[in-house]
């Protein structure tokens, strides 16, 4: 196994707080929710496992005793529980990115129900054909309006696919940059001097 500190991207002398923060950021990055139906979801799962193991190793070695378990990822495969009919082989093919086989099998089916459209959408999505995928998901939802799996897939398309965003790029600037800090201090100093005082003697 790789050096756990290297996996989390912190130095071995980092504080517990820093280690935790690094772990949380990576867990947020590789969370399965960011890789729903993604052709790279298996790689993300591996990364998530590596990050979890690294964090547990560090915590265990530092505390030497019992510890509260790290982040546990929720549902592994998106398709584990849903299929009833003979679509399970096709679902398995899609999950392992065997898209050519999955598509060929689907095209051979004449009775095209909601599940057919949903799985076709899934094949299209993994191929990068997002517009067509959305269209298939819409049809699936029309045919079976109460199916949560299809509804969630459609919603995901409608919102443009949720994704991880690094914390230093989070929108709604609440943070201050060093430039803000400097200019605020200079302003405060000027105001102070106007009032007869002096906040920063050298300015």
């Amino acid at each position, binding site marked *: 196994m790789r050096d756990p500190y290297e996996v989390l991207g912190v130095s071995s002398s980092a504080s517990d707080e820093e280690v935790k923060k690094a772990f949380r950021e990576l867990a947020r990055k590789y969370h399965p929710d960011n890789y729903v139906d993604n052709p790279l979801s298996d790689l993300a799962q591996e990364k998530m496992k590596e990050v979890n193991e690294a964090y547990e190793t560090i915590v265990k070695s530092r505390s030497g005793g019992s510890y509260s378990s790290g982040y546990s990822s929720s549902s592994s495969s998106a398709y584990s529980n849903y299929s009833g009919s003979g679509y399970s082989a096709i679902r398995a093919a899609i999950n392992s990115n065997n898209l050519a086989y999955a598509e060929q099998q689907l095209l051979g089916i004449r009775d095209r129900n909601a599940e057919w459209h949903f799985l076709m959408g899934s094949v299209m999505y993994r191929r990068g054909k997002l517009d067509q995928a959305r269209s298939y998901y819409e049809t699936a939802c029309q045919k079976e309006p109460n199916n949560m799996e299809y509804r969630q897939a459609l919603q995901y398309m409608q919102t*443009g*696919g949720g994704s991880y965003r690094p914390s230093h790029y989070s929108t709604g600037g609440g943070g201050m940059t060093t430039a803000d800090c400097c200019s605020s201090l200079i302003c405060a100093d000027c105001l102070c001097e106007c009032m007869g005082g002096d906040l920063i003697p050298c300015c």
Partner: protein
Amino acid sequence: MFGYIRPSRGELKVKHYEYYKTAYCGLCNTLRRRHGPAARFTVNYDFTFLVVLLSALGQDPSFEYKRCPASPVTKKCAVCETAVFDLVADQCVILYYHKLMDSVSDEAFPNSLVARLSAAALRRAYKRARAALPEYDKTVVQKLSELSALEGSNSPSLDDTADCFASILSASVSHYEDDELRRPLELLLYHIGRFIYLTDARDDLAIDYKKGSYNPLIYRFNLTGGELTDADADYLTATAGHSINLAASAFSLLPLKTGMEIIENVIYLGLPEVWAQVESGVFNKSEMNRHKENRSNN
């Protein structure tokens, strides 16, 4: 080339922006060395992005100072050329050449004449590049001809037309043997390619409609005027944004080193910014004018 792949300069640290420029210079030098001085005019920031991305997977770069025709007095700092630079330079020449040949047939006089002369100047370079990368050239030719056929039949499919271009970009790395690198790279480049195609369609919609040229948006959204309805514009923004998000998901899985911040900035900030500018009609394609804009904004 298209000019849509650019970082959000204001949010990029100076040292990273400087590295980005040295990569551009390195690419230009590679083009000159491998393909002669005429090939230099193919250098562009889209391929600079590609060379930064692929170089970030390798060793730390080294730098050298070189003379530059665009900078007659001071020497410019450039990244030392590597096998990655050679690869990207060859791909740049191949794609640029085919794009010129398309212009020869698609554009009217005098643009077609300019394209014809430029293609002639580039022909030897193209043949050399094609000899180095025969599979890549084959893919480019095949995908461009598929695209031509779709355009000729007024295809209403955003995905199929975008796929032709996106596949060309992801073909840049199809020879990478390591699955754990190749798969995320292919997905990242595919969706960046899809984004470029959609942005180009959005950018050119008004002109294409006026000239009667093909634009996938016209047929996809059944437009009767040269503009999208608000609902259609939102739909298009969602699908373009989705491609950016998929590119981001692939980026997270790549062990990038020097230059990582540039790629990160492009994906999370640059591309959305470009889309917003194209939508509101303020996007400026010309790199020269962009520098002037940046200077006046600072």
